[in-house]
């Protein structure tokens, strides 16, 4: 189907996958190691907005079909935010 802006109500599994995806690509910090607690849902919404902005989508914070399609598309494994330990910019400055 053609991606649209229709919101998609995620199942519990999909919510877990969404949080995993956002953490994997640097939009959400990993869970607090001392408590193991995940982020509040507002943090997840903000992370979705950030992901949408970076991808050039409308930053609604809602995982619509277009957002879902992008999240399911093939991509580079490196994170978009908080690049690996030492960014080129840091290295250059050194």
């Amino acid at each position, binding site marked *: 189907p053609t991606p649209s802006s229709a919101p998609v109500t995620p199942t519990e599994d999909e919510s877990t996958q969404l949080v995993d995806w956002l953490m994997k690509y640097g939009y959400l910090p990993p869970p607090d190691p001392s408590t193991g607690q995940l982020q509040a849902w507002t943090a997840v919404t903000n992370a979705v907005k950030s992901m949408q902005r970076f991808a050039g989508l409308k930053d609604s914070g809602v995982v619509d079909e277009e957002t879902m399609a992008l999240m399911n598309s*093939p991509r*580079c494994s490196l994170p978009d935010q908080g690049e690996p330990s*030492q960014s080129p910019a840091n*290295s250059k400055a050194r």
Partner: protein
Amino acid sequence: NIKRRRRRAISMWTRRNINWRLHTYPSSSHLSREMIRSLVFYALRVWAEPTPLEFHEVGSPEAADLQVDFLHGYHGDGYPFDGAGGAVGHAFFPSDPDRAGGVHLDAEEEWTFRQPASEGTDLFTVLVHEFGHALGLSHSSSRHSVMRPYYQGPAGDPLHYSLGAQDLETITQLYGKRNQLLATEAPHRAP
């Protein structure tokens, strides 16, 4: 080996001659090994054309600054592959002391060349992107950048492909412009 790799990684920012090696190939692919090797050559040429960088193929791992591998699933660097689709590749920045120069591609992708997007993932396009990381470029949010994290289908013909404005600006900020180098060196070269 670790010390040697670290030294090479640190010096890569300041070097013009970069050695590359194609270490492993996908176990089953429609693309021949020679075709894969050619696509690596052309993908590196994309980054060499606007800069003073020169890439040389080498056989030994000790001499290689960039090493391309096709790998399966978990392979020990924290970025596991997931079969066809999903994560297709990654590469490490020159500033990464332990992993710089590593260019990893998912061996289980259906790698293609000059095929419609529905047939698989265009190897040349992904190589250009991952070499961008290996040379120090981060992901870009621009739809016209080859450093956009999402695979957007074949980027173009390897023989005629050239970088977009943003990628061109970033790579020349890091390594300088090819023409500038020639102009600087010209007096020394003149007989």
